């Protein structure tokens, strides 16, 4: 059982609802339904994938939003990215990339706000492009999921990628 600080436990019903939300989000992304994906985010969403430092343990430091990052986006920033895919001149996405998001290790924690849940998950993104280019990315996600008008929406996401040198020419998928 997953427990919050004050020992209240997420119900099986809630865990199921959050899982279904994350699976649907993954499917919507796999199918390039980016406008629909944006509706699954709150208007004040912060979508963040920081750069991960490789330093000696004695020198370790946490990334901040003022450091370089892969993503550090608000809703209007994400909208710009979606606009790119709608221009009809997004040459590198035609033919389309094949993407599969596998979402696992989901843990749901209650927070002090009854409408907000802290959710941990692993995303394994398998990307196949052009003739035979394959790339697998594993991201450790920490989400804040909020109930807005009865519907779950993603309000915050932090993704820590298990790579130092990003192993491919572009990051053309959301993790």
């Amino acid at each position, binding site marked *: 059982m997953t427990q919050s600080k004050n020992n209240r436990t997420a119900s099986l019903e809630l865990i199921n609802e959050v899982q279904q939300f994350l699976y649907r989000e993954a499917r919507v992304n796999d199918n390039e339904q980016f406008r629909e994906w944006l509706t699954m985010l709150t208007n004040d969403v912060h979508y963040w994938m920081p750069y991960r430092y490789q330093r000696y343990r004695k020198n370790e430091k946490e990334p901040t939003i003022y450091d370089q990052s892969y993503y550090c986006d608000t809703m209007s920033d994400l909208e710009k990215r979606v606009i790119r895919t709608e221009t009809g001149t997004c040459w590198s996405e035609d033919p389309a990339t094949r993407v599969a998001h596998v979402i696992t290790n989901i843990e749901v924690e209650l927070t002090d706000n009854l409408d907000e849940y802290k959710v941990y998950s692993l995303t394994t993104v398998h990307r196949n492009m052009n003739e035979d280019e394959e790339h697998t990315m594993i991201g450790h996600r920490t989400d804040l999921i909020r109930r807005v008008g009865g519907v779950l929406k993603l309000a915050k996401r932090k993704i820590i990628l298990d790579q130092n040198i990003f192993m491919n020419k*572009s990051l053309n998928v959301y993790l």
Partner: protein
Amino acid sequence: MQKVDYNKYIDTKEGWVDRRIFWDEDIYEQELKQIFAKSWQFVAHTSMIPNVNDFYTTYMGEDGVIVARQQDKSIKVYLNSCPHRGNKFCYADDGNTRSFTCNYHGWAFGIDGSIGALANAHVYDEGDIDKVKCGPRQARVDSYKGMIFATFDDEAPSLEEWLGDFRWYLDMMLDNDGETEFINGGIKSYVNANWKFGVENFIGDAYHALWNHDSGLKAMNNGEGFGPAVQEGSYHASVNGHGWEFGTDGYADVAILGRPKWLEYVQNVIKPKMEKRHGKLRSEIFGSLASVSLFPNCSFLPGIQTFRVWLPRGPKKLELRIWTLVNKNMPDDVKQEINIGCMQTFNPAGVLKMDDGENWEGNTQVNKGYLTRQEKLHYGCGINREIEHEELPGIIYEGQFNDANQRHFYQRWADLMNADKWGDVPTRYTPKYAGKPTV
């Protein structure tokens, strides 16, 4: 073995380049020896290692090096390889330490690269090892306005001579309003492309932006594309193989970031100061549609502020390291606007960068076809457009949609590939600012 004349791979008069320079292993090995073991290369920005004992690890060619701030605040650059069995003695990207210790047998190294204590030192008899003679090889180090450069060639000309009149242009980026710094964190990524395709894209390829980046620009610029290519009042400038292509519209690159605070800051703070200190022309150039590469492998976009090196990883792969350059005295919110803008345009998930990587991999990987790589590539755009300009230093061509800087980059490449000694390197341009400051 018969000496190869590398001029056979390029023709700057007719405008073509032989594709084998993007593929052949033996040409690549010669590049490591003739280009990367000789050239001054950008290794770090001073702001990455501000404190005593700060260090950063990078590569010169494929030679791993440590760039480290010394007790006296000077900077040393030395090979990251233990002289005992060769292992890297630092595996971190950066940090702060008084010493490094090789994991294999426990040899310690000071921040200056000198050999310190050996683990279990009693196994050595007196006279077995001369620690001073045995230490890892040190590079020559110099800096220009925050950019730290190093070379392992004792005979290479001074950094000032190497940069030459290109300093006149660099000052627009590095000295437009005091000192500069990098935003924390440099993002590294692999591209399965020859390193030269990244460099030549930034050195003079405004042309690709109109077509290739149409979607990215529309995303960043409220649905507006680039508009027609403007040749009037735009130029290519080449000095010692470095190249800057630019317009004089003043704001096109700044606008690409799509960040109003940055645009206002350029207009209200930077431009008026530049006009006084650098003159009207340079204040008009900064922020215009432009891109830059320093020979051999460092690039940036003035106004967009993305800064990068293209580290060779064999002829078919490069490691790209990306930073964001800002002025130290900018307000924090302006720095953050630039940081976010660079992230969104030219980092690995950037709406412009994503399209570039595809092209450069394609340019490179098609050459696995034997017949394909016998076909020459066309670099003839604007070949007769060279002009004399009373103010602009360097070899100048009119019209920024032009292959001129690329032709001169490959000429410099061939000149160094052929040279047995520095005296053999032809002088292609006589500097106006030799021994003089450029601002």
